[in-house]
């Protein structure tokens, strides 16, 4: 058992998680691109901790990258969280509102 096969199989298995329905379709490419986009997005956001301190930013970068890679296909969860359910949107709105009020009050 060579190592290349295992890596290939792992990659294949990882890619298979994106497949909806039968076979690879154009949606699958969209999902994979979206997954990579989301990963880069999270990594770039984690760099923002450099505003507070640079060592913290490095730690957060490593931590968040491992975390995101561990839960690899997060795109379906992202899609589910962005679904057009009224109650879900209201829930997120309340969370955002609470965060905004908390941040601004804390800042003042």
């Amino acid at each position, binding site marked *: 058992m060579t190592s290349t096969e295992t890596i290939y199989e792992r990659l294949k298995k990882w890619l298979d998680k994106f497949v909806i329905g039968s076979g690879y379709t*154009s*949606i699958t*490419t*969209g*999902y994979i*691109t*979206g997954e990579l*986009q*989301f990963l*880069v*997005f999270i990594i*770039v*956001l984690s*760099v*923002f901790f450099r505003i507070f301190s640079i060592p913290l930013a490095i730690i957060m970068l490593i931590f968040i990258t491992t975390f995101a890679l561990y839960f690899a296909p997060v*795109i379906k969860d*992202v*899609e589910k969280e*962005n*679904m*057009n*359910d*009224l109650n*879900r*949107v*209201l829930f*997120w*709105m309340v*969370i*955002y*509102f609470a965060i*905004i*009020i908390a*941040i*601004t*009050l*804390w*800042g*003042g």
Partner: protein
Amino acid sequence: MMESISNLWSIPLLVIIPMLTAIIVNFLYDKAIKPISICSAIIILIISIISPYGYHWFTGHPAFNPDTLLFTFNPNIFGYRLSLEFIFGPLQHIMIVISSLILLFCVTLSTIGLTKRQGPYMALLYLLFMSSVIVIMVNDLYHLWIVVEIGSLIVVGVAAASGTSISHKAALKYAFFSAISGAGLAVSLALILGLTGFANISDAIIYLRQFGIGDMATVLYIAFGFFVLSWMYAGGLAPIHPLKSEVYGASYPHATVLLQVQSKLMLVAIGIIMLRLFSMLPFVKEVMIFLSVITMMIGVIMALIQVDFRWIIAYLIISHSGLVTLGIGLGTQEGLVGGIFQAVNDIIYMTILLLCCEALFYFGGKTSTKEAYGIAKKSPFITTAVILGAIAAAGIPPFNGFQSEIILIQACLKEGLPEIAVLILMVSVTTFIALLRGIYRIFLKPPELQDQDDSNVDLPKVLIIGIIIFIILSIIIGIYPDIVLRFIIPVVKEVLLI
């Protein structure tokens, strides 16, 4: 000494002509609707082009100057204006000219596309235009709140007019949310009114700058929170984007053109008002930047995984609204110029894409990437146009998207936020990928079955002329950005000085 009130003649006309057209068109037979609505759109376009700059004061109160203790009608003299007012300045000029040009094509297209119940639908389109005109001209909290509430009700109506069950559901969800955010904006208005005593925004800002907020800062924070709520809602920012994109996707494409114009203008108008009212508080700009970054990334990721071309464009509109608000949230001169310029460019290239999407309705009405095939063979023109629109949206140099994105990136780098510059680049690249997925499947991919009918479809001439005009506009602005920037820069300087 007697000074006379000099209200600008064009502001009431810009508001009343759409309203009157909406009322008249409701009672007309189908044949009379078309000439009257097109004439009205042309009149609005001409008025908006030739109008001089000025003010409209509702109560006719003279302004009060606290230094000399005199009353005056001269708006250039510093003082409390004490009145509800509309402004028609350079920013309003460019925005209203572009949106009335768009209104002309949308109205003509809707008379061709719809066959029954044209009157009420046309009335809704005109009221939508009216709300977007008012929101960019408004300079007092009272009219701001009214126009946000009524504008959202009209959006509900336009979305429901599409007639499918998806659009009814989208409209109902949006209406419920409009109720909550409208109440929030009213509370915010009440808090600012209680804090300063002025409904005029310039007066409220002068009061806050002169006397400070003292120990009442908490009240202003809560007002800011509710303002952000209505901002998110009116422009479809991050937590609201599933509802707003559903509204964009479920309406007819020519109505979506006007819907996105309205939401861009609301984003710019409310964003500038927020920047002027609350920029003295800490963490305000950070909140605005955070919201816009989340919006533009989530919007573009959701656009990648859609299967319907209409929904791809709907999520891209959301994502590019994030770019607009990012520029406003930065709060510097470059940022504001980039944000407002991005709003103008966004309106233009999204109009190209949406008009091409409207053209798909004449080829059988299938917009899903699973169902539509090979439009390129039937209509090379539309295919070229949609690819040019995608290039403009991605920000590739000869087109207008490039000019505003480069300003935004420079503004981010100047502020010391290179990460956000990277994210803007990512958004523009991913926009192209997301659009190209849809374009390849729908336009370029050859049909799988050979027995498809090759019947010739006659596209309406208005659609073709509209697409050509907006592509030319896009290229002209891309090569000579100064023709738009010279309207925007004086306004930005004024906003940042006040």
